[in-house]
């Protein structure tokens, strides 16, 4: 198994810093503009149901996912649009899914909370808090079972950490040594409940100690810091089948979902404004400008190109037909072809 060593194959292989950073910036701006468009579509009634935006948290998903190989896996919560795009699910198919159309990645049957794309090993957005954490553990089990050297990254909110499924999973992953990276996106709130009102400990990453799982706290507004933490975690997973627990501290700039207020009784406007100063996109932009890696004009060009992509996603979704009524009964069970 010596061949496993450090072939992380992440985007930086043979790439200059400037090129790498430009890719990260592009991904984050694409996610941001895409979701701004989503909010617009939601207001127009083109998107329905629950819709949770990732705005403010983009560096977490982008940093982690940019370190993965194509044959690694991603599984996440209902707050899934940004991560899907970071993983390479096409903006067209995500938007079509949100519009409930046949060309959506889940054929219009899943909606915002259930973005799945088998082509890029995106194992779904899941709606039950904590429910997908054991599934991630199971994927890691399958990787080890087959003797592979892939990894799975499992995103969850900090509120999921209080749930039994999380603890049961970490115990098994620690016990069986499974190549899973649990990423707690600590955005300080589970809906309207502040983390300190829901968790008996403040530093969530320390929960890894209980299960002999390597753990770290990471600045989630700095995409490069996220990548560094992820790099170490991936090495543990690939080389030694060791799990990692990362607590990545971030903040959501919008309400819990499109149906919730941005601020209110549970968090103040002043707090929100303080965090808006640490916008992950601005932080990377500033670093790149300081290093002479990008100019204002280049960013403007990038924005323009992204604007076209996002509008194209909207137009595509809008033109895509609604699923035919027969589709209601499709995909309940699959025809058994094996055995």
């Amino acid at each position, binding site marked *: 198994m010596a061949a496993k060593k450090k072939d992380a194959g992440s985007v930086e292989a043979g790439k200059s810093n400037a090129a790498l950073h430009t890719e990260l910036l592009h991904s984050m701006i694409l996610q941001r503009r895409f979701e701004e468009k989503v909010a617009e579509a939601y207001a127009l009634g083109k998107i329905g*149901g629950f819709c949770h935006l990732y705005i403010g948290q983009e560096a977490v998903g982008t940093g982690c996912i940019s370190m993965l190989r194509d044959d690694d896996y991603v599984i996440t919560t209902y707050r899934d649009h940004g991560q899907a795009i970071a993983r390479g699910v096409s903006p067209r198919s995500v938007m079509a899914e949100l519009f*409930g159309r046949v060309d959506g990645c889940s054929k219009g049957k899943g*909606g915002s909370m*259930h973005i799945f794309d088998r082509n890029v090993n995106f194992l779904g957005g899941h*709606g039950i*808090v904590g429910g997908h954490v054991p599934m991630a553990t199971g994927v890691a089990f399958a990787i080890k079972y087959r003797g592979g050297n892939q990894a799975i990254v499992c995103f969850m909110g900090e509120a999921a950490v209080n749930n039994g499924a999380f603890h049961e999973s970490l115990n098994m992953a620690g016990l069986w040594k499974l190549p899973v990276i649990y990423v707690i996106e600590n955005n300080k709130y589970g809906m309207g409940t502040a983390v300190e009102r829901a968790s008996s400990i403040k530093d969530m990453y320390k929960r890894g100690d209980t299960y002999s799982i390597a753990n770290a706290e990471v600045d989630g507004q700095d995409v490069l810091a996220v990548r560094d933490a992820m790099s170490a975690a991936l090495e543990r997973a690939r080389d030694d089948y060791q799990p990692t627990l990362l607590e990545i501290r971030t903040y959501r700039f919008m309400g819990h979902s499109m149906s919730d207020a941005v601020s209110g009784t549970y968090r103040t406007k002043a707090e929100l404004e303080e965090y808006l100063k640490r916008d992950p996109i601005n932080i990377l932009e500033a670093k790149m400008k300081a290093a002479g890696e990008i100019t204002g004009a280049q960013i403007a060009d990038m924005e323009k190109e992204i604007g076209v992509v996002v509008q194209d996603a909207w137009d595509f979704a809008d033109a895509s037909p*609604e699923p035919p*009524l027969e589709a*209601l009964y499709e995909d*309940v069970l699959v025809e058994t072809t094996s055995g």
Partner: protein
Amino acid sequence: MPLITYRDALNQALREEMHKDDRVFLMGEEVGVYNGAYKVSKGLLEEFGEMRVVDTPITELGFAGVGVGAAMVGLRPVVEFMTWNFALLALDQVVNAAAKMLYMSGGQYNMPIVFRGPNGAALQLSAQHSQAWESWLAHIPGLKVVAPGTPYDAKGLLKSAIRDDNPVIVLEGEMLYNLKGEVPDEEYLIPLGKAELKREGDHCSIITSGKMVLVAMQAADTLAKEGIKIDVVDLRTIRPMDVEAITTSVKKTNRAVVLEEGWEVCGIGSQIVDYIQRDCFDHLDSPVIRVHQADTPMPYAKALEKSAKPDLAKTIAAVKKVMYIEA
């Protein structure tokens, strides 16, 4: 009589019972500071303090069990699930503990606990968030299950549920919370296990409960314009079921449609049809027809979702079918 929402009716019931009995407390996700995910508990934290209005972490299994433990030693918990979809995580405590405690302790430990929250589908919430669980819960001996369809019933049934010395499941409706109805100022209770004839007619019975009561009433209104008079039997309590109310109605009308929100297979309607065939076989002029959700998980896309749900058009069509009226 004041016109109030279903949400406010539940809020009044909680407030009144908490005033009356200091063993009653409310526990669940976002019930306190946030005033409830659907604002049912609005103002209660302020009024009763944080020992009696308890915000929990997202730990359904854990806090349902905390409720069971507290009930064993004499408190009277009202456990709110943000929705019943999430209560699946807590079913071990509801089914294996609360429902059986009295029985397996040979009568020593009763369970004065209420588990409540919204049940069934709202709009475009997709597969994991749009499920009606009444048949699962009503399957369990040792539980009582109520499903109020109006503000009046919501208040009266919740008050009775809190006073009951057994575990009572209260299935509310997300789509009902804004529904307005008359609720008197003076105190009242609605007995558990008693159906109500919400509309009288002699051509056909519609037997239903919860959110579907509204649909049945709309169907009765629409059909009345065509001269078809419907008996609407609102079960209100699904377990124990008021079988007599069902059979009395069917013996009068000789035709029945059974309307429920959930899935067909092993649904509440199967049980109702069984009661009807046992007691009303010789009275039936046509086979009983059931209206229910399509036999699939709930899809997200708008038109698909609509076609999956039981609704007014499907109910009217079913009534016409049992009456042998060409559509």
